């Protein structure tokens, strides 16, 4: 079984443009919290590109949400232009 022994957190507020956040180590678990408003994320794939857009809407999706996903970073923006969302992604290593 996987046991996490280190973590780092990326938190902030979204804007209309993608903000890129990179981790210092690859995640074993990713804990996603989106606050108040919806946000759109793309996660970094092993080849350094970013994958499909995932929408997170706290109105319908309960948070925090933990995914056993291995990534080195993500891009995040507001799902609805002009409506900033609070976010926190914790990378559990």
């Amino acid at each position, binding site marked *: 079984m996987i046991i996490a022994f280190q973590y780092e957190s990326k938190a902030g507020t979204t804007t209309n443009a993608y903000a890129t956040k990179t981790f210092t180590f690859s995640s074993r678990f990713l804990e996603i919290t989106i606050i108040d408003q919806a946000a759109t994320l793309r996660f970094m794939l092993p080849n350094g590109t970013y994958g499909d857009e995932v929408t997170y809407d706290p109105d319908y999706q309960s948070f925090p*949400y933990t995914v056993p*996903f291995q990534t080195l970073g993500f891009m995040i923006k507001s799902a609805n232009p002009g409506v900033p969302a609070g976010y926190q992604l914790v990378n559990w290593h």
Partner: protein
Amino acid sequence: MNKVEHPKTLDNYGLDPTDPMANTPVSFDVSAMSYGSFWRFLGSKKVYKYLELFFLLDRVSYDYRVFSGNAPDAFGAFIPFPFKSYFLWYSSFGDTVVDYTMGGSESIITTEGESQYFKLLEATGFRVRNSVAGSNVQYQLVIFR
């Protein structure tokens, strides 16, 4: 006053030497039984189920794909995934019915308050429909491997 007769013992283990069973060896091999069941367990399909679950839980996914849109009122064609999922995360912004089988026979309903789920399901595709006709519910399915 009656005399209390203590049982006559053969070897201090409570066996009465006058009992016809006293000289009958009674034993069973615990190790043989337990190992026997262990080997039977190893030879069965059940062990692979456990191993599969162990490896599934031990996996860390590194790739993902997103399927999203508005659900139709009736199941359409089976939408294949580009890869078999390790895990999947489904969200619907309303009530929907999802099926991950080719035959469309095992439907999973999402209802209010249970509008998202994360499942350790190795699936190769899905189909989705509205729970209530005409509701045109938006859904999002993220598959991980």
